[in-house]
Structure formats: C-alpha cells, structure tokens
C-alpha cells in the first residue's frame, strides 16, 4: 500500500471529488504500478464510495491492474494495421520468450505482457513497446533478440 500521506495528496489534488475517481486511480497506479486492495479501500472510505462500485470501476477500465505488474512492461500493438502486418506472430514470439500470455505477469515480477488496441504509429507496424520505448517494423526473430538483450542486461546488472 502507498503511504497514507501519498494517498491523501492524490485525493487532495482531485478535490476529494468522487467524480474524479478514475483520475485518482490513474494516479495511484502511476505510483504503485498497480492498484493494491488496501489503497482502494482507503479511497472508498475517504470519498464515501461503495467498495462494490470501486471494484466495478477497477475491473471495467483496462488501464487498471489489480495484480502487481512486472519490472518491465512489454506491449504489443494489435491495431488493425499491425494485425495485417503479422502482429500475431510477434505476440507469439513474446509469449514464448517470456513464458507468459497477454495480460499476465511472470512469477518473479520481472515481466508483464500487455496487448493494446492501437498505438497510432501505424507506419512502424508491427510495433512492440518495451518500458515506453517503441520498436517498429518487428519480426518474431527481432522481438526475441530484443527481449533476450534486455534480460541479459538485467542479469549483468544483478551479477
């Protein structure tokens, strides 16, 4: 859970208005990387929102995660332009390399694989975004090499 002070300052920034709850959750997730249950309970108490409604919101909006996410986030664009250029093969390559499916996080919280509707950089399709960095015109082999490189760099850093 985030510190109460942090949560309070997020709530204050949004004038403690229940109408701003989506923005509040976005800010919590930006800090915590996911939405811990205790944080949601705290927001519910402070803004007098029923927990059931909170769960509705947190599960309805795709941007929110109720599970901790990995240190690295790999997003594969599945927009139509990327799809017709073979994005499925890219997802397959990421899944094989990381051993997780779309929407999943690996056990040691190193990687999360997300798929996204469209990033709007269609000239570069198929696109993979790793930790905010865009990699365009990908092939499955290039994708595998990219992920292996990041993993290796991590390994070296730890060692």
């Amino acid at each position, binding site marked *: 859970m985030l510190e109460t002070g942090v949560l309070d300052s997020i709530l204050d920034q949004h004038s403690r208005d229940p109408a701003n709850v989506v923005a509040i959750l*976005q800010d919590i997730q930006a800090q915590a990387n996911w939405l811990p249950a205790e944080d949601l309970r705290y927001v519910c108490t402070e803004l007098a929102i029923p927990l059931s409604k909170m769960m509705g919101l947190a599960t309805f*909006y795709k941007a929110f995660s109720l599970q901790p996410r990995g240190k690295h986030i790999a997003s594969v664009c599945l927009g139509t332009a990327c799809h017709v250029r073979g994005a499925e093969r890219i997802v397959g390559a990421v899944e094989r390399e990381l051993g997780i499916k779309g929407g999943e996080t690996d056990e040691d919280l190193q990687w999360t694989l997300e798929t996204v*509707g469209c990033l709007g950089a269609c000239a570069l399709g198929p696109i993979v975004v790793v930790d905010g960095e865009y990699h365009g015109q990908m*092939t499955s082999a290039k994708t595998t090499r990219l992920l292996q490189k990041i993993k290796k760099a991590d390994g070296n850093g730890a060692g």
Partner: protein
Amino acid sequence: MLQKITSPGDLTRLREEIQAQRKPDKPCIAICAGTGCQAYGVNRVIGAFEEELDKRGLVDQVDVLATGCPGFCERGPLVVVKPEDVFYQRVQSNDVAEIIEETLVNGRVVDRLLYKDPNTGEKVVHEQDVPFYKLQRREILWVNGLLDPTRIEDYIALGGYGALMKMLSTMEPDEVVDTITRSGLRGRGGAGFPTGRKWASCRRAEGEPKYVICNADEGDPGAFMDRAVLEGNPHAVLEGMIIGAFAIGSREGYFYVRNEYPMAVENATLAVEAARAYGLLGENIAGSGFSLDIDIRRGGGAFVCGESSALMRSLQGDVGEPQAKYVRSVEKGLWERPTALNNVETWANVPLIIDKGWEWYTEIGTEGSKGTKIFSLVGKINNTGLVEVPMGVTLREIIFDIGGGIPDHKAFKAVQTGGPSGGCIPEHMLDLPVDFDELGKVGSMMGSGGLIVMDEATCMVDIARYFLDFLKEESCGKCVPCREGIGRSLEILNRICEGRGRPEDMALLEELSETIRDFSLCALGKTAPNPVLSTLKYFRDEYEAHIHDQRCPAGVCKSLIEYWIDPNLCTGCGACTRVCPQQSIEGEKKAPHVVNKMQCIKCGACYDVCRFDAIVVRSGSVTPTIEAQPALALVEAN
C-alpha cells in the same frame, strides 16, 4: 507575468509583437516530433541538431522547431528546412551535420535525403511538391507543420484565436449556431450528425449549467488523426470549443483524452493552461463578459467510452456504460445537463468556419458532406500516414494516387473503413466517393477516418474474426444482443478459421448479425456486425474455401496453413534454422533445408527471416508429395 488579453485589440497587438520579434527569412529547421516520429527516434535527431548548431555557434541564427505531425509518417523522421521548405525524409542523427553544412551554410540540397517520386523517379526538393501532400487539401493538418504545439505564441502568430475575437466582438450566439448550421459541418467522430443542429438543440435545452466536451477518446484501431490534431495543434481544438461554448451558453467543459495518448494529454493540458494565462479561457474571456473553463480528463482504456453517453458516465466517475438513445445528451447529458459533445476534428473545423465564413466552407466537399476529412491511411500501403482531402474524393485516389498503392507488387484486396463499426470494401467499389452517405450504402461507413488497406495476403475471414475479437473484449456487457451475440459470432468465426466450419455457418452468422444490429443499445453493438456482413457479402468465396475445403486462400489462418521450403529457392544459408524456436528445420549447409511439419508450431519466424523468399506458406490441398521434396522423406523416416 503575461499581459492578459482584455480586448480583441490586445490580441492583435500581441500578434504584431510576436511577429515583429520573428524574422520571416530566418532559417528554421522544422522537425516532426509527433508520436509516429518519436517512435522512429526523432528526439535523437532534434538533440543532434541542437548540439551541432551549438558547436558551430549558429544557435542564434537558426531556429529549431519541434512540430506536430504533418502526416507523412511513412517517411519519418521528417525535417523541413525553412524558409525554402527543403524537405528531407528518413533523417537520422548522423545526417544532421551534413544538412547544416550543406543546406544551411552552403545553400545546397542534400540529394540523398530528398524524397524520390516512385512514379517518375525524380527527386522532390520542396515540401509542397511532394505528391503525397500535393494531392491533398490540408486545411487543418498543414498548420501542424508550422508551429510548436506547446507554445501558444506560435498559434497566435499564425492568426490563432482570431476567429474567437471576431466572434466575441461581432457575433451573437444565435448567429454562431446559424453559421455552423449553414456551413453543413457534420460530426467527424463517425456518426456525421449535423453540428449546427446539435448546438441549436443544446442552446434551446433547459437546464444549467451546460457543458461542452471534446471527445478525444480515439479508440478505432488504425485511426490516429484525432491524436495528430490534438497533439499537433491543441489550440485550434480549444478555440473551437470556446466558440461552441459561447454559442450554446456553456461555462464549463472537458477534454476527454485517451489514456494511451500521453503527448495529446500533455499538449492539451499545456494549451488550456496557456490560454488561461492569457485570459483566453477562464473568467471574462478577452473582456467580453463571457466566461468558460475547461478541464482535462484521461480515459481508462475502454473503447466503449468513445461512445458519447458512455464517455459522459465515465466523466462522472462511473463505469462507462452507454445509455439508451431516446435520452438525448443535448438535453440530458453530463450530470443530466444539456451537453454538446464533439470530436477533436469537428472542433478543429469550427475556427476555420467562423474565420472564413460558412460560404467558403460549403464550397469544399459534396452536397451532403462539407469540408475536408482527415483519414489515417494504414496497413498494406506504400505511404502510411494522415491524408486530408475534400469530402467526395474517391477511395482509389486516396489509396493509389496519394497512398502510392500496395507495397511489394502485391494485389489490392480490400479497404476497411470505419474501424470495428465499418466494413470491407472490395476493388470494384474503389471509385466510390468518400463521404458520410456513400459508404453507408455499401455496408460500411466513413466512420472517424481509419482506412486500412489490405492486400492479397490478408484473409478476410480472419479480419472479421479480428474485429469481433476486439469488440468482444470491448463490449461493456450491459445489453444481451451485443454481449452474447458478438461472443457467439466469434465462436463461429473461430471454428471457421480453424477449419471446423459448418455449411450452415454463413447463414447463422447473417442471422445473428441482424439480431445484434437491430437490438443492441448503442452504436458499438449496432455496427459490430458490419465487418462480418461486408466480408460475407464481398468475399464469400473465402468463407467457402475455409468451410468446404479447409483452405485459407490468403495463407493466414494458422490451423489451415503449413510452411514449406521451396528447394529451388533455398540456398541453405541456415538463417531459418537459427531462428526456429523448435529446431524443426533441418538441412546440410548450402543445401535446401526442410521443415519438419511434426514439430513446426507455425510461428512464422523462418518466413520473416528468409531473404530468398524460399519459405512458402501453403494451404489446403497443396501439401507437397514426398517425391517433390525428397529431403522430407528422410526427416519423416527418422
């Protein structure tokens, strides 16, 4: 401290002051810093320009301008050297020193960075002569290349907020509504509802306060024109909203921006803050007595929130479920109050109409659809990018003249318009004029402006499956026809793609589609069957091949294809064996290789990596005989 603008005269003076500080003949390097070019790594190019100019002591003599997206994404990163407008494409940081030395210092062009017209083979020097731009009519997009979207002064210098001042000093709200009505402007978000009529209803509606909303929750996959406009010229959108708010009598408004568009969120936020600082937003705008404030809200990654009533629920802090259409949002919208919601591009058209007059606007476009429309031209197309054309231009002109046709000499198959709500249009209909009404007649829709081009290697059954898969995820689940209908249709399409299709499946899909279309609550469901119905109508033979022959003619559906190495083309280079995750490709060095079909998972890695086109995707009854592929016999014998 900024000087607040308290009268139209103040803005004119400010504009003159800004212009006086700027020398029109001062060299300027305009670089596209939109999301597309960012993905190409344009920040390194911008950094290289700044560093090189600094090194040569030219910082004071040359401006570097990071602009929004001018549209030619295919050729990014894009650099234009002004004032001559020399156009360089695919510029990398190691090209920067040469551009500065040759073009800025010596006044010569760098030939190798020019765009080469593939039709004539000639190099094009100036931006305005590039065929991709020349064939467009860029009333909105051209401004993107002229300003830094984070600086309000750039917009003001170009005449920005002039329309607002004209309105505040000479027009009454009814006159504004009337001007927009006469212009024939229709909503660019997809439905094409007449904007003037929407505003008139909202103005008449009872209830206070009234709201204006900019819908920037652009969710159609393959569409990014709203992002480009909001990122590249946020003040034009904001100016449009202020004009609209004045017209309907609103004091409060919102931008609802897609969460996946961080730069659009940032630039819209900066625009609102800057306008407020200059007194162009907030209390007593430019001393007129009219007040309006606008806030920014981010979406939560739900496609359905692009639907207006769902978007309003989301703004209220609720789950974004659409409402029944008999409740009109112009009367009972956000917090049950009269609300005028328009899309980014619609708002961006408003200042143009006020500035140049409705008569000017009606000269552009067709009888029923006025003005220009921005399309995002993507998929299997040579010139991927944003294209702004007058309504009524044909699909063929957009795809072949502006878009440069299909890459790799492949054949055109279809163009998908209108995102998940639209349909696939075949070759023989390419001469259709594109406007709100014409595409609807053939089972598609213009929609918000995504044009996804497909070639012979695109499977139309897979495309229908793709869109339903997308919509199944995005359906909010409130009404049964959409939630269940899409799910069941997807099951059918999945089994067809897996070669388990049944003869009656096509009729069943059509029946289900009609039910979904007729009984869903909102446009997401009502239009969801379009990709299915249009592919069934125009590409029925592909469905039949999947169902009757277990064959995918385009070679896409995984269950129905196999990878085969053509021994006549394979050089035995071994590239495929190195990438194969299954080690299922075997062969001697420099001798034709063979795929062991028993182990192959059809990941396509070998296909991507082969430089000799030796890996062939085959489907159906074309499985090679053992004799035709002697090495296979060996592998299988083992």
